[in-house]
């Protein structure tokens, strides 16, 4: 149990009379790439918000690195090593590409307002370190030439990429991607799949991919969990999932599965 990075035990959340997520167990090991899929309204994003602390579960618990996360707000969880992207891109619109990444690197720094005001040699050294590390990260993802541009001036695909870079800048152990393929064309999706694999290999971190698009998930993930109506209806390798009658029923409807 302790070797799992993220562990969800019988997590349930109710909004009034509606049970959005019901008794879901899920675990992610170190360096593992797990997909979470399901039809529209299955509770994928709710699950995501439960893990990142936007919602608190009605019952059940979420453990990260063996520690309970009850009551911890999103910024605490990010400091513990959990980083996320957003389904509808949420970059910092008033800042440059570089500053978007810099802003995400503050959380582990000791320098605060005192260093900002005094600007001694050490503080300047530290600022230079942040900048070069940010540039390095951007270079890995081919965004180094865009450094000084406004973040929202980038084309859609690059904005998605920048969101991933920004999340990685918080030095996470677990990267949570919320529907990164949403709104992408087929070429961009192939590129995205390559990118996710690159992240996992290069940074040696775990990835949870919440995705509506089956192709991307099937091509990238080692293990997939399927949600439907807030319940986990299947879990296994891509091949197993593809053959699972419950999954086919959930995606294509009951009759097809019967046929």
């Amino acid at each position, binding site marked *: 149990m302790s070797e799992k990075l993220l562990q969800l035990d019988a997590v349930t959340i109710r909004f009034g009379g509606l049970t959005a997520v019901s008794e879901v167990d899920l675990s992610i090991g170190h360096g593992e790439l797990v997909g979470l899929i399901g039809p529209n309204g299955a509770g994928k994003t709710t699950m995501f918000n439960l893990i*990142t602390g*936007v919602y608190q579960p009605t019952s059940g618990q979420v453990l990260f690195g063996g520690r309970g996360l009850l009551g911890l*707000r*999103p*910024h605490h969880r*990010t*400091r513990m090593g959990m*980083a*996320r992207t*957003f389904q509808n891109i*949420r*970059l*910092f*619109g*008033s*800042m*440059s590409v570089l*500053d978007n990444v*810099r*802003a*995400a*690197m*503050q*959380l*582990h*720094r000791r*320098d*605060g*307002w005192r*260093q*900002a*005001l005094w*600007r001694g040699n050490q*503080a300047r050294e530290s*600022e230079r370190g*942040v900048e070069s590390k940010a540039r390095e990260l951007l270079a890995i993802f081919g965004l180094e030439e865009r450094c000084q541009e*406004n973040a929202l001036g980038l084309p859609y695909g690059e904005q998605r990429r920048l969101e991933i870079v*920004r*999340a990685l*800048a*918080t030095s996470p152990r677990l990267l949570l991607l919320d529907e990164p393929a949403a709104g992408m064309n087929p070429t961009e999706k192939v590129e995205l799949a390559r990118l996710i694999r690159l992240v996992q290999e290069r940074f040696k971190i775990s990835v949870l991919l919440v995705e509506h698009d089956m192709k991307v998930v099937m091509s990238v993930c080692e293990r997939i969990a399927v949600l439907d109506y807030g319940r986990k209806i299947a879990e296994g390798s891509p091949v197993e999932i593809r053959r699972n009658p419950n999954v086919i029923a959930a995606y294509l409807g009951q009759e097809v599965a019967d046929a």
Partner: protein
Amino acid sequence: MRLGGARRWLVLALLVAAAVSAGSGVMNRYYLGVASEVGINVILAVSLNLINGYTGQFSLGHGGFMAVGAYVAAKMTLVFGEQVGAAFQPLLFAGALVAGGGAAALAGLAVGVPSLRLRGDYLAVVTLCFGEIIRVVFQNSAFFGAATGLSGIAPWTTFGWSWGVAALTVYVVLALVHSTYGRGFLAVNDDEIAASAMGLNPLKYKVTAFLVGAFFAGVAGGLFAHMKRAINPEGFNFMRSIDVVVMVILGGMGNTAGVVAAAVLLTVLPELLRGFSDCRMIAYSLLIIVLMLLRPQGLFRRSGKGGGL
């Protein structure tokens, strides 16, 4: 974006302010008075810009913070002014300004911590009410002279003091905002949810902005009291807060250079147009309406891009 050699500029600005101050005996007193007022308004506008512009909170409490600083600083110099020798007067003045700023910062904390969970209009209403409460408290406190206020305050606010502190304010706000730490203020403004997802605590940034903004508003209040030599609660009413907000909007939210220019403009213009002073608030309202229609990003902003100087 970087603040290269910013400290050198700060030192230079302070030296210039001191030099002009030393030679001020030969200058026209009216112009010096207006110049001092310009400095005070720059302090107010630039510090409010940290709250309203960079951090994106809508505060209407600057008049209240200014009042706290003005009363505390004035009371201090009135009580201790007689007892210290002339040589120690600048020291006492500096101490009184810092005390006034500190008291205002505490007031900022008191209003900030419970109310910063509110957003937009709601926060504006709370800070507005807070400013009125402060005013009424001073109005009914015999210790602070009740409705007549305090008078006979030493005229210690010179051009040098006001511009020196203005330079310091500009430096502090710019140095904060342009550090990696300070990108958090803009991040909170841009997208609070994304900011917290990046490990930044939005509440902490908002409270810090309030604290710093209120501190400098308090110092500006102290300078104001020692320039006018007499203060009363009516001088810090709601219109005072609005004046500062207009400067920030006119200059462009989160654009320090623009806000400084707007503060200068809106201090000098009413002096030039004294004959039409009855129409001032009408002109302000019209100005804001026209500005919102034609240049919603502020007069002095180059593009929609934020975070510039």
